[in-house]
């Protein structure tokens, strides 16, 4: 393969700088003792301290994490079961219909998901707050899990199931000891994606969150609308740290399971 020319390297470097500069700009000024994002006066951790002392903010952080974990877990269960169900359908037409319906929420703009869920929750009388946000997050995470699990199920050799049944396994055994271990990487990926989608979501949550309940994204939005506050910068420092940790954790986990499955015959 031909090597990169100097101009290509400069171009790539520029793109990387532009992509990362705003993030590091935020983090840099989170240590500023002055109150703005312009003049760096001196190093301080007071803004981080402010985050941890603000009990309202801590509650919102906990809410965000709880919603993310719960919605990722529930949607992983529904999505995995759904994918197993779709694959076992014999009717190809039915299968394709389900797959198209599955993709509707993936391609729909967030505003439409948010607005239509707002109508839905109001119609069936679900109070806007924790429950509505959780339901909405589960709803938009399910199709992603299905898409992550489906390829694994399709590449699985069906003779594995036949062999297990011939050897006297019950259908529960087949599920727990053959299918689930095989598609485990897909389930992992689905859970992880669902988690990041939930943590990142702003638009849908913005529509279905009531007055009393808030997640981090919605809270940052209202803080940003009010103007610059270095507390937000401190939050970005923390978010960046957590993101990097999650990425590293995910890679360690997937490479470990990959090694394990590759070790198998």
């Amino acid at each position, binding site marked *: *393969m031909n090597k*990169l020319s100097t101009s*290509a390297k400069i171009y*790539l470097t520029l*793109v*990387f700088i*532009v*992509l990362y500069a*705003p*993030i590091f*700009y*935020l983090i840099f000024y989170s240590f500023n003792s002055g109150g*703005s*994002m*312009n003049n760096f006066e001196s190093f301080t951790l007071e803004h981080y301290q402010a985050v941890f002392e603000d009990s309202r903010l801590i509650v919102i952080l906990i809410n965000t994490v709880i919603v993310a974990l719960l919605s990722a877990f529930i949607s992983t269960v*529904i999505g995995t*079961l*759904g994918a*197993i*169900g*779709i694959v*076992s*359908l*014999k009717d190809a037409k039915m299968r394709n219909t389900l797959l198209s*319906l599955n993709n*509707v929420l*993936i*391609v729909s*703009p*967030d*505003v*439409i998901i948010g*607005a*239509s*869920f707002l*109508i*839905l929750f109001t119609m069936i009388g679900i109070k806007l707050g924790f429950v509505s946000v959780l339901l909405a997050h589960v709803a*938009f995470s*399910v199709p992603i899990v*299905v*898409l992550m699990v489906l390829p694994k199920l399709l590449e699985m050799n069906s003779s594995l*199931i036949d062999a297990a049944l011939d050897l006297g396994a019950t*259908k529960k055994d087949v*599920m727990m000891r053959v299918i689930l271990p095989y598609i485990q990487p897909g389930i992992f990926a689905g859970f992880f994606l669902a988690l990041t*989608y939930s*943590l*990142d979501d702003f*638009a849908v949550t*913005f*529509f279905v969150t009531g007055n009393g309940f808030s997640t*981090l994204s919605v809270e*940052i*939005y209202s803080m*940003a*609308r009010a103007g610059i506050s270095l507390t*937000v910068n401190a*939050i*970005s420092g923390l*978010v960046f740290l957590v*993101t990097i940790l999650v990425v590293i954790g995910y890679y360690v986990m997937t490479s470990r399971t990959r090694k394990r499955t590759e070790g198998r015959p």
Partner: protein
Amino acid sequence: MQAKTAKSSLFPYLLWIAFFVIAPIALVVYYSLLDIHGHFTFSNYQAFFSSVYLKMTLSSFWYALLITFFTLLISYPTAYFLTKTKNKQLWLLLIIIPSWINLLLKTYAFIGIFGLYGPINAFIEIIGFDPQQMLFTDASFIFVSVYIFIPFMILPIFNSLDRLNPTLIDASRDLGASSFTTFRRVVLPLTMDGIKSGIQVVFIPALSLFMITRLIAGNRVITLGTAIEQQFLVTQNWGMGSTIAVFLILFMVIIMLITGQKDKGGRVR
């Protein structure tokens, strides 16, 4: 026996489809036929075809077009060069990581960067010009949107370039094509699928942005998304909001038919 387990495992999934895919769309269509007092009417559709809303739709399309164009312009070469780096998967990951940082935080950063006393204006002053208000302009809105969408555009293009068989390029060179001809006649057509799904992943969300318009463009730019948010959460006219949503869904379907894709792709919020 196997089939029976599968059927019951499908049950929660089917419930999900009924409640969160079919019901919401049906409700949006239903509400688009109601006026603010809940009476049946076509007036929302009439209103949509008035000059105010048509103008807004056009300008929303224009912004989405500009955003998609600049995103593609920057992303294609980036993806192309990325496939030529040594540890391309690692570099790709580094490009993707910024897209995982909360969107609100990235947008918030630009409030500071473009601010009257921000680093860009400081630079402008150094080279001898007067500082300018850059927030709340069209240019800043487009810049921030492009910034947000770049990783989402790079990913599908990178994948299609990565799948490209390098011997095809060698063959084209051996047959005497210049590198520009090779690019135009071989590389570009073969990566069209990646470009199309990239456009799809950027254009539809760009039509429906509302957070960036509010924070960066003030009230200067009104996209379809902003209008929906306004109708639903500020004016509380759900009927009109639903009507705009119906048209946004229609536009989405048309765009997807044009860019003809079975491929999935990321989502931007």
